[in-house]
Each structure stands twice: as C-alpha cells, then as structure tokens.
C-alpha cells in the first residue's frame, strides 16, 4: 500500500503542525497550508488522496474552497472539520459533496478511521 497523501487546510498552524506530525508518525504524507487560496493551488500542483478542510477560516471560506475543489475534482474526498456542535455547517458541507465532517477537538483514532474509509472508496 502506497503512502496516502493528505492535504490539511486550516488557518491554525499550531493545530495543523501538530496534527501533521501525528499523521506522519502513522505513515501518512501530509502537506499543510494555512489558507484557502494556497489550498486550491496545492490541490492542482500536488494532488492529494484526501483533503482535510477546516470550515472556519479567514479569507476564502471553507465552503467556498470545498465548492471549487469539487467543481474540478468531483472524486477527490474532502473531510470537513467544524467547531463542536456546528452540525448544520457539516451537513451543509456534505450537501456540497464533502465526504464527511468531524468536530474539533479531534480524536486521532476516529480521524484515522475516517481517512481509511475515504481511501477505501
């Protein structure tokens, strides 16, 4: 099994840095960007197997990024991150083609399970 490439898009670098390291420890290849624009170019330049996208970001919003990714790569799975309890945002994202959504703070094991599930599709 080849290493899975994950693209992490989240403005909170402290969060993405630590999460990236943890995923790398679990044999994932992780690329992190801290805004929507960079995320979109990363998808084009270095296509990942899966995108983990925070919905709440300054600048280009998570939903907007999701829509653009999906318009060009309808088959690329996107896993959304939302604040705790923001179920509506997650559901709205799923209506726009997201694979699933998870609430922050994350449980690493649940995240791994979701990534595996997405990869298995």
């Amino acid at each position: 099994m080849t290493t899975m490439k994950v693209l992490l898009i989240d403005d909170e670098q402290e969060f993405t840095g630590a999460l990236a390291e943890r995923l790398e420890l679990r044999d994932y290849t992780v690329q992190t960007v801290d805004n929507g624009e960079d995320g979109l170019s990363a998808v084009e330049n270095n296509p990942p197997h899966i995108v983990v996208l925070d919905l709440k970001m300054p600048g280009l919003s998570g939903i907007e990024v999701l829509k653009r990714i999906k318009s060009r790569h309808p088959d690329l799975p996107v896993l959304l991150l939302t604040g705790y309890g923001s179920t509506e945002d997650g559901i709205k994202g799923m209506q726009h083609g997201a694979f699933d959504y998870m609430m922050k703070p994350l449980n690493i094991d649940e995240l791994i399970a979701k990534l595996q599930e997405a990869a298995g599709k």
Partner: protein
Amino acid sequence: MRIFYIAQRLFTLPDQVSEDRYVKLRRNMAVLMFLVTLIPLTIMLFINYHQYQSAIRNETINQLRVLENKTKHSFELFLQERLSAVKYIANAYSVDQLSQEDELKNIFYTIQQNFSGFVDLGVINPEGVQVKYVGPYDLEGKDYTGMPSYQEVHIKGSYISDVFLGYRKFPHLVVAVERKDPSGQNWVVRASIDIGTFNDIIASMSLEADSDAFLLNREGIIQTPSKFYGGVLDKCPIDLPPKTFQPAVIEMTDPQGREIFLSYVYFSKQEFVLFLVKECSLLLRSWYALKGQMLVVFGLSVILIAFIIFRLTGVLVRRIKHADERRELAFRELEHSQKLSSIGQMAAGVAHEINNPLAIINEKAGLMQDVLERTDDFKHKEKFLGLVASIIRSVERARGITYRLLGFARRLETNYEVLDVNEILHEVLGFLEKEAEDRNVDIELDLAQNLPKVHSDQGQLEQVFLNLISNALSAVQDGEGRIHIRSWEINENTLGVSVDDNGCGMTNETLRHIFEPFFTTKKGYGTGLGLSITYGIIKKLGGDIKVASKEGVGSTFTIYLPVKTGSAEGTV
C-alpha cells in the same frame, strides 16, 4: 389545583402583602361604589321627600280654598236670594196690601213654599211698630225702634242681620227691606230666617269627621254651630285673621293645641266670615303613607346595591388578581427566556472561542503521546505518559462542557418523529442502571400501557429524561434512595411523565431559581445548565414542566408533553 399551587409557589413575588392589597382594593372599590350610588340616591330621597311633602300640602290647601270658595258662594247666594225675595215683596205689593193679614199670609205661604228657611214675615209701620206679622210667634205690635236692624235699614235701604236671639230667644237672622208709602213714609218689610239652613249648606260640604266649618260675624261671634270652638253666639277662641275676600289658608296651632290649617274668607256683601278648619295630621296621613313607601323602596335599593357591589367587587378583584398573576407569570417567563437567550449567545461565543485552543492542546498533547510512545524508555517516561493522558482526558471533559454549552445555546433544530415515550425512558434508563445498581438505588417504573405515541424529537426527549433522572440520582442517598418514574395519559392531547425521588428536596429559594441557567446546588461540579436546558427543550417541544419539592422529603418533576405538536393543554 396542585399544578396551580406549584406554579403560584414558583412565581409568587417575594412581597407577602399582595393578598392584603387585594382586600384593600376591594374595600376601596366597594366604599367608592357605595358612595357614588348612595349619595345621589339619598339626595333624590330628600328632594322627593320635600317635593312630595309640599305637593301634598299645596294640594290640600288648594282643595280647602276651592271648598271654601264654593261654600262662601252658597252662603252668599242663599242670603242674596232671601234678600231679593223680601225686596220683591216690599216693592211688588202696596203698603195697604201688605197691611192686610190675608194678603200677607198668602204672600208668606208662597214665599215659604219657594224659598227654604223663612220663619216669619212682618210689616213695620213708620213708627217702628210691627203692624202685621205672619209666623209661629206672637210678635204683632212689637216695637222695633230700638233694634239695630231697624236703624240700619233706614240708612242702607236693606239689611241682613247677624245671628241673634231676639224676642223669641232662638238664633236666627233677619232680612229687612225699606218701602216708602205714597205719602213718603218709610215702612219696613222684615223676615226671619232659620239658621238651620246654614247647617244644611255646611253639611253639603261633606267634611271629614275631624274637620270643622262655621260662620262668624266680623266681631268673631260664632254664627253657626262649631264642632270644636263653641256654640252659636259664643266668642270664637281663634282671633279673626286679616281681612281678605279671597280664600286664604294659614297654618296655626288652635287654643286646644292642635296643628290646623285654617282656611277663611270674608263675605263681601254680608258681614260674615267663613272658617274652615282642617287638622294637619289628617291631611298628612296620606303623606306619611307615601313616606313609608319611599323609605321601603330606599331601604330595598340600598340592600340591592350593597349586594350587587359586594358581588361585583368580588368578581372584579378576583379577575384583577388573576390578571396580575398571569402578567407576573408572563413577565417571569419573558425574563427567564431573555436571560436564557442572552446567556445562550454568550455561551455559544465562549464555546466557539475555546474550541480552537482546545483543538491545539489536544493535538499537541496527542503528538507528545505519540512521540513518547515511540521513544525508548527514559527515566520519567511513564510519568510523562500519565501526565499527557491526563491532559487529553481534561480536553475531553472541556469538550463535553463546550458541547453542552452549545447544545444549550443553539437550540438544535428539532427533528419531529413519532415516538414511544416509554421506549425512550427505557433507553435512557439503560445509561443509568449501572450507576443505580452500584449505589443500590431503587428505580420503580410505573409506565402506562397503550400510551399514545407522541410527535416529538427523540434526541431532545432523551436529554430531558437523562437530565431529570440523573438529577434524581444525585439527590438520593446510596442504599436508601428510591426513584419513581411514571408515565400516563392526561387527556387525548397530553401525556404526563413524572420523576419522583425521596432525596434531599429543595428550599423555596432553590425552587424559585431552579430553571435559571448556571443556577446549581452541586457546588464545584455542576454547570447549572441541566434543568435550564430541560426547561428550554420542553418549552420548545410545546410542553410544560412543573416541579414540587419539600426539603428532606423529596422532589417531583412533572413533564406535560403534547401528543401532536402544539396540542398540549398545559396545566391540568
């Protein structure tokens, strides 16, 4: 009733004077209404009293005047007729004819047949001697020169005397008319008139028993018999009032001490005064009867007014009280929901802001754990691992708190389905049975069979039941705790679910704040959100929640759930 009592306890203002306030309000209203109705009524009574009194008095006086006038005319007419008759005799017959006894007799009999009251008829010669006489007495040859009537007739030509006894010692009056013979000598024709005729005229007035009517001459000597003031020719004890030819009425006290109306009139052509006396008490009798009726009507009106005011103020004050209570309740609910909403917004903000740092702590600690686990043993590895695990657990706990805060604040969208309340209760109990068993708390279920399915939100109902049952669990003592859960159908629109415990119970102060957010008695570990969320959810689902509690005895929470959305009939 119980629900009302609970609601009242829950929402009564701290001021305990409110009952007294309504009593005062009612009293003030009653007094005011009584005054505004009674004062005009009393004024009317007095006005009517006086008006009726003067009306009755005036009517009586008028009647007296009319009667007086009529009687005066009868007397005057009577006397005038007699005088005319005598004048006719004196002028129609010659002195010779009048001096013949047969002729005089004929004339007398004719006159007696046509005019009542004539007693005799006589002719007096110029020397003052009665030369011819027809009548029951022997008066022929009597000399009249000394009589006032004889002198008077020469001055006036005709004369009507007062009543006097004269030669026959019997009260009568005399009508005399002068006649000149061809030689120019003055003869006089005189006739006596029985005053019994006067009595007939007075009798025709048909007076009441207590009334009196009589004639007087202008010296105040009684001319016809009086019932109360003396016989004929007695001096009348009542002084003659001022002269008037129109009937006048005066009120006075007579010498016998009686209150009387004295109606009198002076005759214009004759020297008589007619007195008509009527006792005041007599004519006022009808007034007293009317006064009695008025007082009865007044009394009945007062009783009726008092009764109506009593009932009306009772109803009004009761309504005002209910309105006040409802307003108070609505105000408290509004206050409560505003509090909930503002606190909710703040809570949501706090939860969101805390989420990000929590996520960072979570990942950093997770990374630390990952790294540690992949590192060879070193001196404090186990201790660090333990510390990291503790950090991660705390983050979990914080996550739970933000979840609850958001759940409270966001009023998650309600997802209505058809649900079996008993089933949900069983599911919730599944979570708590372990704790109950461990603590040896007895949970009794009393769930109604064939309970209608409700149209509601499963997740939110679960949360409500979970909150209530776990609260009950925290309230009871290990080993002796007992929790009674009941579900039943209240009516076709409403279900009831109650959770009853024999725990520590609550003070009234606690009860008053029980549904407010952040109000907690679990010092140190309660968020104070559980019951507030419960309250919010139940209200949102269209139901109602009531609580009854007694310190040291236990608490009962009762939930009223609508079977269909919006169908609950609230308190029962």
